[in-house]
């Protein structure tokens, strides 16, 4: 069963702590679990490019999606406002829409 989290950090509010948004797959309906799996697979197939430096962006926000599967080491994908690609952005939005308000954990 999947557990995914999205951490948003930095940006104009650099220094601010923000709790991660967490989705526990065990608490999803069957169709939501299927959606989540498809989005995770899309991201794994097409990860965003690595962030090698600040580039021309100023105050861009950073994002970390962490995917945990039972029996496997967690996998992280990192991006920012300028580097996040469609699979990353789509999964980010899905996590925000389905996550617990208090952050939670799994």
């Amino acid at each position, binding site marked *: 069963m999947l557990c995914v989290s999205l951490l948003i950090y930095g940006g*104009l509010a*650099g*220094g601010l702590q923000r709790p991660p948004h967490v989705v526990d797959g065990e608490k999803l309906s069957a169709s939501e679990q299927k959606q989540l799996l498809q989005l995770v697979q899309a991201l794994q197939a097409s990860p965003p490019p690595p962030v090698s430096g*600040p580039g021309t962006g*100023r*105050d861009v*926000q950073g994002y970390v999606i962490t995917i945990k599967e039972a029996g496997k080491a967690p996998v992280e994908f990192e991006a920012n*406002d300028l580097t996040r690609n469609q699979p990353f952005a789509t999964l980010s939005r899905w996590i925000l829409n389905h996550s617990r308000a208090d952050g939670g954990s799994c």
Partner: protein
Amino acid sequence: MQCIMPPHILEHLLKSEDGELREIALTNLLTNGRLGGERKVQSLTFAGGPGGSMRTVYDCRNRPSRSLAKVARTERSGVSKDATVNQAFEGLGATRDFYKDVYKRNSIDDRGMRLEAFVHYDKNFQNAYWDGKVMVFGDGDGKLFIDFTKSLDVIAHELTHGVTEFTAGLEYHNESGALNESISDVMGSLVKQWSLKQTADQADWLVGAEIFTPKIKADALRSLKAPGTAYDNPILGKDPQPDHMDRFAKLPDTQRGDWGGVHINSGIPNKAFYLTAMAIGGKAWEAAGHIWYEALLASNANTNFRQFAQTTVIKASQLYGTEKRKAVSEAWAKVGLSVTVPSLTPSAKGEEKDLEAAETHLAELTHQIEVLSDRVRELTSEVEQSLHS
């Protein structure tokens, strides 16, 4: 044989309401290599003509794409029904006018560069940023943040990143990056003070005071007056900014390390500016801001805190003389940076005394001239009265 789109057509397409056509036109201009360097292209293609710096605000309609944004307001269109569009438009204008009126700077590049902002970017987007060419604003998530265009100092902060890029080019990491952030905070605050006609002691010296939701107990994103005190609550944590070199945060030069803490250590030069402005008094954008702006123009990509501090002391001396030089020097000393300027070292104390004596003599002469001028006016008035009687 290569067919080349005539430039006048491409420039017309740049103003199209269709985002895709604008992208195609810009791509054509860049890849044709007609003009050397992306920055030059950007400056020329986005220029609104001599003294133009025309503004355009685009509405992303809560989509995570700028290429599909619609033009929402231009210099020729009327006021929008959308308050966010109007706030962005007015904020761009206030910042542009500040730089023009106060520092005689013609837009970001000093050549009338067009100013563009994209609002309603994505859904619940909790940020505002500068991508190197344009500004992007989110609406916030309604829990932590609200509309980022509500804060004039945020708009001016982002545009000032463009000014820095066209002047010193301070690299965005470690000390030069923290200076880059500080310059944006300082100028952001000055644009707000200028628009409100506030003196230094009337200003709140806060950045982003308007963008938190009411239920979040926080003053602002940052405080130039008291770095480290802008917020302290269980959700956001405590404002981590230092106000002294003793508390300089050594962070990794990575994205997660805020590129060496550019938003953290900016608190130190922020505080130095606040202390300078308060010591000088009056309107902070005049002497203090002028000194800082000239120091920015005299800096380069790798300027660190100490070098910038030295430059501000030198500029203060050159532009305003001993008194303000002392104010700047003492401000930096209070944040842990004692500045030694070569021409003012103990071995040159004789020169320093000569300079002070010359300045005093000049002040005396100026006063005498003013007294004599008043007397001449009185005598002239008496003569005129006697002629008419």
